[in-house]
Structure formats: C-alpha cells, structure tokens
C-alpha cells in the first residue's frame, strides 16, 4: 500500500511530532521505500503460526508486597525542566 503525505501527517499527529514540509516530503519517500521493502514478508504463509512476542517462556515476577522508601520528592524533581512548590510545572492544559 502506498503511503501518502496525508498518512505521514496523520502518523506524526499520533506520534506527537511536529514535522516541517521538507520532513514530510522526505519521510513520505523514505517510509514508502521501507514499507515496500517489508512487503517481502507477504511471501510467507503465517496464518497458522503463533506470534513470538517474547523469545523465551516467561512467568510473571512478583515482589513481596512490602512498603519501601520511595524516591524523595527532591530526587523525582531533580531533572524537571520546570518546577514550582514541589510540583512539575507545565504549560496550560485548559483552553
């Protein structure tokens, strides 16, 4: 299936990326090229094949339900680009 500029705009919106007109041109071409390449997978009959999401059988790992000291507020905020009164500060959410 051919990928269009409109598709690229839609995917960028889903991915929360702002892309310039130049980038749209380039990405339409490159993603199309890559998707053409992966079409080769259609040669394989896989209807009765189970997918491999993880390569080895895994069991859930549970930790004991004990109260532990969490990261301090200071540590949590130490990398925040902006903060105020012990909270992350963000741009306005309500229009």
């Amino acid at each position: 299936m051919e990928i269009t500029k409109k598709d690229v705009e839609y995917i960028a919106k889903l991915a929360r990326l702002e892309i310039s007109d130049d980038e749209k041109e380039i990405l339409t071409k490159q993603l199309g090229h890559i998707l053409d390449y992966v079409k080769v997978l259609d040669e394989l009959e896989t209807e009765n094949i189970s997918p491999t999401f993880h390569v080895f059988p895994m069991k859930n790992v549970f930790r004991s339900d004990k109260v532990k000291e969490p990261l301090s507020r200071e540590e949590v905020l130490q990398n925040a680009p902006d903060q105020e009164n012990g909270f992350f500060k963000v741009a306005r959410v309500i229009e």
Partner: protein
Amino acid sequence: MNLYELKVHEAHDLIKQKKISCEEILLGVLDRIEEVEGIVQGFVTVTRDYALKKARETDKKIALGRKVGPLTGIPFALKDNMCSKDILTTCSSKILEGFKPPYNATVFERLEEQGAVLVGKTNMDEFAMGSSTENSGLFATKNPWDPSRVPGGSSGGSAAVVASDQVPFALGSDTGGSIRQPASYCGVVGMKPTYGRVSRYGLVAFASSLDQIGPLTKDVKDCALVMNAICGSDLKDSTSAPVDVPDFCSFIGKEVKGIRMGIAEEYFSLGIDDAVRNVIGKAIDNLENLGMGKVELSLPHTSYALPAYYLVSPAEASSNLSRYDGIRYGFRHEDSNNLLETYQKTRSRGFGAEVKRRIMLGTYALSSGYYDAYYLKAQKVRTLIKNDFDEAFKNCDVIVTPTAPTVSFKAGENTQDPLQMYLNDVFTIPVSMSGLPAVSIPCGFINGLPVGLQIIGKPFDEGTILQVADAFEQSRSFLNMKPNFGSFVRGGV
C-alpha cells in the same frame, strides 16, 4: 608495555601482586584518553574526578586487606544508555540533555560492587538506533583503525574506546547487532548474551523484547570475566531469566575437539563482500584444524529477519519513546502555548532524524488497520526465524557466520539511504530476533581493517561460545595487531 594496553586479566594479576595500584592504572588510562580522544571521540562524558575518588578508595581498601576480585580497580566505560546515579546519561540525544538519573542500572551496580572503576560514558547512535554512530545527536565517533571510517553502531563509542586502549573493557547494548557489528568493525570481542541473561534494569529501553546488555573487551578471557560479573537474575527486571550462571572462565583454555559447528549457506550469499567471505572461510578452516566438526545446514528464513526486525523494533521504540514529553526530565521546548504544543515541539527538536523516522514507522505499524498486516505479521515471521535455529541446533553446537557483510565503511557513505544502512545488520538481526547468545571476535584483516567472526550458541550456552572463541583466538597470534595512532598523534592527519 604501557599500563593502558593491559587487558583486564593482566591488570588484575599486577594489582593482586601489588606491583601496581588501581590509581596508577587509572592515571595511565586517563593519559591515554587525553592522547587519543581528540581523534576517536568515543566518550560523551569522562568521569575523571569520580574515577580518581573510586580508585583511591579501592587502593585504601586493598591496603586494609580487601580481597582483590577479577575486576577490582579495573577502569571501564558504560554506553550512555545505562543509568548511572547523578552522572549524565544522555543516550546521545538532545532530548536527554542534562539528565542525571536518580538510580543506577543493575549492571553498573554489579560492576561497582566488584570494585571496577567507571571512567566515562560512551557515544552511541541516538537511543541505540543506527549502525555507524553517525546518528549520535552529539557528534560522530571515528574508527580507531581508520578515522575516515565509522566504528559501527550503535555501541560504536564503546567499541572504539576499547580498540584504542582508552579502557580495558566497556559495556554496550545490542538490539539488532549493536555490540557485535561495532566489535567487528573495531577489531574487539563483543558478546550479546542470551535475552534475559543480563538485567536490563536501568538500561534506557529501545525495543524491550530485543535489547540486551553485553561486554566489549580486548580478548575472550576478559569477556568471560565481565560476563561473570554482570550475568544473573534480577528481581528489578521481570524479563531477567532465573537461570544459573556458570563460571564462564571455566570454558577458557579448553579443547574444542568434537564440538560441531554449523555453517548456514544463507550467511554466505546475502550481499557479502568477497574478501570478507574469503577471510571467514579461512577462519572456518582454522576451527576445523582445531578438531571441530563441520555441519552444512540451512536457515531458510534468514532473509526475512531484517524486514521483520524493521517492523518489530520501531513498533516497540515508538511505544518506549513516548515517555519523552519534556515534562519530567530532559529537554523542553519553552515556546509553546499549550501542553500538546509542548509535546510536539519538544519531541521534534529533541529527537534526531533517525529516531523520528523509526517512531513514525513504528506508530504506523501499530496504528489501527495496520497492526495485523505489519506488526503481527512480523512477530509471526519471528517465530519462523526462531524455529530455523531450533531445528539447526539439533545437529550442531554452535553456528559460525560472518558478523557483518563488509568491513567498516567510510563516514557519510550510507547516511542518505536508511535501507542501505540497515543492511549492515543482516547477519546479526536473526540472532537477536531469536534471543540467542552470540559473540563477534576478530578473525582477520582486509586492507588493514578488521573482520569479525560471529559464533552463535544455544540459549544460555554462552560457555560453549566462549570456549570456541578462545580456542580460535589462541590459534591466531597475529590478531594481537592494534590500530597505530603514532602517525595521527604526531600530526600525520
């Protein structure tokens, strides 16, 4: 011999015999970094003061009777996608500018417990996406054998600093070949352990079902020593395997007579350079001369691994990288009117071109209407690839292949064509898709550039891989060749 040239086990012997101190080794390494780093550019951060403090503390502990373990006092580097408490961890991305994690990766903690000394964090393709370290958001690393060429990627920084004797060992991470391919291009030993063998806690996630941490070292014995330190289950990582860890050093120096090596025809046809094929052919002859049996076999779905990987890994990446929103850490674009604009502008300016391309590809593969056709299809193909290996290992103990189809290429040669760049990983990706362990070891040279031999093993059978790799290494003394920096340092370039 200069102190910076020492391998891990050689340095350990001297520290144990009290012939040198940890501080002396560290100072030798720091001088070497100063001497060659201007050319190689393998480090994002050099932790000089931190390392000096640690080395001096370790010397004091030894003086008071601390047991000297195999890594006590040994300087090392971490790829910059492994968290180190209060030390910059950037994934070579502008979006993680200034990020200092509040906790340590398990591997880092295990190495520090052994007394190893962190010297710095190494450059990488941004978020481990790439095959040349040209996709770093900061600067490009050079191949120590020829600075006009790439060191490979994405652990190119880790491979280059080991190859140029800036540290005795480094850790890298491998998603589709990112330890083995740069090891091949830089002429060092690089191992991707079985998926789950090493804890990924504190490794910045790229594609969670594929990512695995492993060592880059100067020889196979050192690789075994580092594997001993970093392997083992970890309650902090739910994908970490509860499997016993053998003493990997017990496989070093053993005969390989009777071990069956599988040779898969597909690995000698997919775009491989003739000269590489020739060098690998001689390496296989060499292993036969050591008494190994040879079994011809087929891995028929090999050519489908690369396209399947380029759906699975971007899909997982698009999900993992959604956390970079400019709110809690790293870079934030300030000139935004609302939250959505903050997200969009931060991500657009913080991520580089390759990362954006993969996020777009992954988002597309997971989006409504395309999930079954792309992502699910690729995961089913992954089953076929894994089945090929399961079948092959019924008839052999290891599989031997080239690590990469060519030697290191010129910087800039593949940057305009993502597909061409992706083809460098054609021989490493099937192994990653199957979660198997594999090592790349130097096996020869073409016009002064190293060639890597990949040895693939059964799940959790890293020991046999190391046994074969060590036997090969011991039989080829010319592999002690090193890149010659003399002409560069003296102003040759």
